[in-house]
């Protein structure tokens, strides 16, 4: 009888211990899950902020299409070299000078770059005013154009009793060209 009571007590104590242990384990598991949920809420807030920023940037980019197109227009397009050369020649005619293209050379940019440099050797012949006006038009073209070098020389010729003063300018102009 005493032995039976003792066994019952031990079994009850063990059951109580297991029960409490299971309760504590379950409680800790829930606590961990709640903590994880709190972190996930933080991650979600960060992800939503990032999403908002990205959509904002996308909206700005979409709204800047005209500005981006304007930026692109300052470069010679990948297939626009011929049109650009013709355009340069037209500037000479506009200023009353003779502009002729001597050589065109593509100076490759870095491999990862989006652009090359188009180096154009040209000569301009005419009166001082016509040559200078052509140079002014060249410097104001709606491209990113630089005059890299220029050699101007006066060339006097005598026609009858009159001396005709003409100038010749040999220039190298550089313009950026999209690949």
């Amino acid at each position, binding site marked *: 009888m005493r032995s039976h009571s003792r066994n019952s007590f031990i079994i*009850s104590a063990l*059951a*109580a211990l*297991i*029960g*409490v242990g*299971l*309760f504590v384990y*379950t*409680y800790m*598991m*829930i606590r961990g*899950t*709640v903590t*994880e*949920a709190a972190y*996930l*809420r933080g*991650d*979600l807030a960060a*992800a*939503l902020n*990032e*999403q908002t920023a*990205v959509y904002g*940037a*996308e909206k700005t*980019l979409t709204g*800047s299409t005209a500005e*981006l197109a304007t*930026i*692109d227009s*300052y*470069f010679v397009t990948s297939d626009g070299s011929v049109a650009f050369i013709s355009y340069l020649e037209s500037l000479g005619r506009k200023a009353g000078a003779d502009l002729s293209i001597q050589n065109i050379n593509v100076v490759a940019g870095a491999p990862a*770059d*989006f*652009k090359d440099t188009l180096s154009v050797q040209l000569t301009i012949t005419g009166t001082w005013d016509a040559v*200078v006006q052509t*140079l*002014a038009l060249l*410097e104001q073209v709606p491209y*990113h154009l*630089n*005059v*890299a*070098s*220029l*050699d*101007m*020389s*006066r060339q006097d010729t005598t026609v009858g009793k009159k001396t005709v003063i003409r100038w010749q300018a040999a220039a190298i102009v550089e313009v*950026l060209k999209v690949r």
Partner: protein
Amino acid sequence: MLFAAALIGIGLLVAPYALVQGQISELNAAIKSATTGVNGGKLGDIQGALSAAKARITALAPDQVMVVTDVLSRLIADKPSGITISGISYQRKDVTTVAVNLQGKGVSREAIQQFEQNLKQEKSFAGVDVPVSDFAKASDIDFSLSFTASGQ
């Protein structure tokens, strides 16, 4: 009794546990949805477009050199009577400086000196120099002149 109480306690905790697990699933789904749109192409596209725009804007940054027509107009403005220019060369050295050489004829040493002085007074011109040997003749002097010009 205690075991039974613990089992009841566990039973009571199961419901909130299931609730929190459900929330975690919802949160994970929401995070996945928020990041899929961003990481799945949009962000890359936007970064690419911004990088391209930045590269183009950087490439278009204006140089600080003095342009040809500015150099020519100042030469003409500074040229005194008695000086005839027969040749001008303009060579870009870097993004701020150009080297200018000029050949001409002066009726006298004084005219050439005056021209030199006028050019020296230009703030954007530096190192204006006429070789002394050019002053050997007293009149109808062929001379050369060199200087560097930098952006305003």
